[in-house]
């Protein structure tokens, strides 16, 4: 690295810490900061107390299309788009900010966040690579994540037409049962 600046390195380190705290994986850190791999490894261990997970990142665009992830991904990408359009922030900064706002939304409505920072980051990259796009729902007008190069003339989003088994997970059933028992008691 020629012309190494201490100030810029400090800034990068600071951002890397922020990213790690929000659950970024090593691949993301390597792509978005100029810090060396060893430094990032050390930093990761120091912040999280464990070694970073090994293995490849999930690379399928299909995950973002299934029902629940799609809603979360759409919300995230809408926030991201708003920020890049109006707040003039770019790159990882915009991704991180949008992700924080997304987490806030989940917190406010007591829902479990489905996206992780790394997922959100790959979503933005899929958009940049034109593998995914958004299309307006013909009923509510909201913008939702879809594959590119398909036909969406009569697109209706997963929230206007909820699939019959959507959201009926084991966990939700257990919670409902627990609530019933509580009310009965």
């Amino acid at each position, binding site marked *: 690295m020629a012309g190494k600046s201490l100030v810029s390195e400090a800034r990068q380190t600071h951002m890397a810490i922020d990213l790690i705290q929000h659950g970024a994986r090593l691949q993301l850190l390597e792509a978005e900061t100029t810090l060396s791999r060893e430094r990032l490894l050390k930093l990761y261990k120091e912040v999280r107390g464990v070694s970073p997970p090994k293995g490849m990142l999930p690379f399928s665009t299909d995950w973002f299309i299934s029902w629940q992830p799609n809603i979360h991904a759409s919300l995230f990408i809408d926030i991201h788009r708003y920020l890049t359009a*109006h707040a003039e922030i770019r790159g990882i900064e915009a991704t991180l900010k949008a992700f924080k706002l997304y987490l806030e*939304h989940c917190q406010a409505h007591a829902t479990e966040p489905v996206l992780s920072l790394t997922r959100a980051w790959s979503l933005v990259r899929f958009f940049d690579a034109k593998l995914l796009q958004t299309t307006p729902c013909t009923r509510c*007008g909201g913008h939702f994540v879809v594959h590119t190069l398909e036909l969406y003339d009569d697109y209706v989003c997963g929230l206007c037409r909820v699939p019959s088994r959507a959201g009926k997970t084991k966990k939700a059933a257990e919670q409902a049962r627990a609530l019933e028992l509580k009310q009965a008691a």
Partner: protein
Amino acid sequence: MDNAQLLNEIRETNLTYLLLAQRMIKEDKPAALFRLGINKEAAELIECLTPAQLLKIAAGNMLLCRFRFDNRVLGDMLSGYVKDKIMASSHAAVLMAGQGAEPIAA
């Protein structure tokens, strides 16, 4: 509610809104733009208002903040017609995030 009291409350609401907006913009501009749903020029205008100016603006007889759910679907959604509350709020959030920023007309 008599008129004087109404005006008083409008002024208070305006002032609270402006102060909150100003604080949000100063603390974290990008997030504030998203939360307030305004564009950059509007934010910059609010940001550099002095306290005296804020008071002057707030003292009118009109509210300064307006509804953001200006379409029917969004209104229905926020009031929760869907059986699932969480789903309704997520749906509303997607719609609100997809809306444009409120600009200042030239």
